[in-house]
């Protein structure tokens, strides 16, 4: 007998929203926790405890507002937006913003191109040295798996700015991790 296929996000959201099915919501949390926490870890410059607190806040907000999910976008995109808002709210409390000028990393934070590091921890550290806008664009396009257009809409940035952030971020990462293009 073939195994029952995993229910789609839409089915789980409907079950959780209409009937308060916590089991369905638990499946959604298990399914999307990795994306939400990875995005927030990048935004929080590697502060895993802060990222996990914000991720928990994200899922609690999602639970409270499930009825507002209109199914016109992917559930993961909706969750990403909640996570981004949680991060922005936290940043505002710390008087931070996504403005590049304010968030530009100091030059001395750059470990230099000679450091031949390539593991995940080094990547996380290197991403932490990017500007807020660059980090947000990298988190959206790689860790939340959004298209450039979706990222631009979610971040409230022009599409060209997102593409520029990605290009600049990759150039900085390349330099800091000592990885040259072939």
């Amino acid at each position, binding site marked *: 007998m073939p195994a029952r296929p995993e229910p789609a996000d839409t089915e789980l959201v409907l079950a959780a929203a209409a009937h308060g099915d916590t089991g369905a919501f638990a499946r959604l*949390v298990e399914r999307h926790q990795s994306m939400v926490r990875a995005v927030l870890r990048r935004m929080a410059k590697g502060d895993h405890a802060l990222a996990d607190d914000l991720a928990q806040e994200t899922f609690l907000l999602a639970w*409270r507002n499930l*009825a507002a999910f209109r199914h016109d976008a992917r559930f993961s995109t909706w969750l990403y937006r909640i996570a981004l808002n949680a991060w922005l709210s936290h940043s505002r409390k710390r008087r931070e913003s996504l403005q590049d000028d304010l968030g530009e990393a100091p030059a001395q934070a750059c470990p230099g191109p000679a450091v031949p590091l390539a593991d*995940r921890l080094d990547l996380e550290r290197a991403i932490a040295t990017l500007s807020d806008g660059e980090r947000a664009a990298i988190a959206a396009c790689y*860790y939340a798996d959004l298209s450039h257009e979706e990222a631009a809409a979610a971040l409230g940035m022009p599409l060209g700015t997102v593409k520029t952030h990605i290009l600049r971020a990759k150039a900085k*990462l*390349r330099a800091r*991790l000592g990885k040259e293009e072939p």
Partner: protein
Amino acid sequence: MTLDDRDPIEALLRADAGAGVPDGGFSQRVMRALPAASRPRAWLRPALVTGSGAVGALLAWLLAPAGTSVVQGFVDLARAQGLTPSAWAALGLAMGMAAVAAVLLADEA
């Protein structure tokens, strides 16, 4: 193979994103923190609307002029005897029930 495929940073970012974050009890922590009081209660809204309608109908009946009867009002309406006080009471009740039904239908949609 595209230029992006050969870019080590592109590959590193994709591999890192693909590796994911192990759950490590996070999901259980979230589920324990779910606020029980805010769980959706499907019965609450219909109960509130119906209850409000019932209270309104009771008040209308209590405050109606002496001698009026909703039943008589429906009879008056059925016999087309004009808008007697009882007919007004019956119309009020019917409109209240229609309003409750409309709210509940809109909620279902």
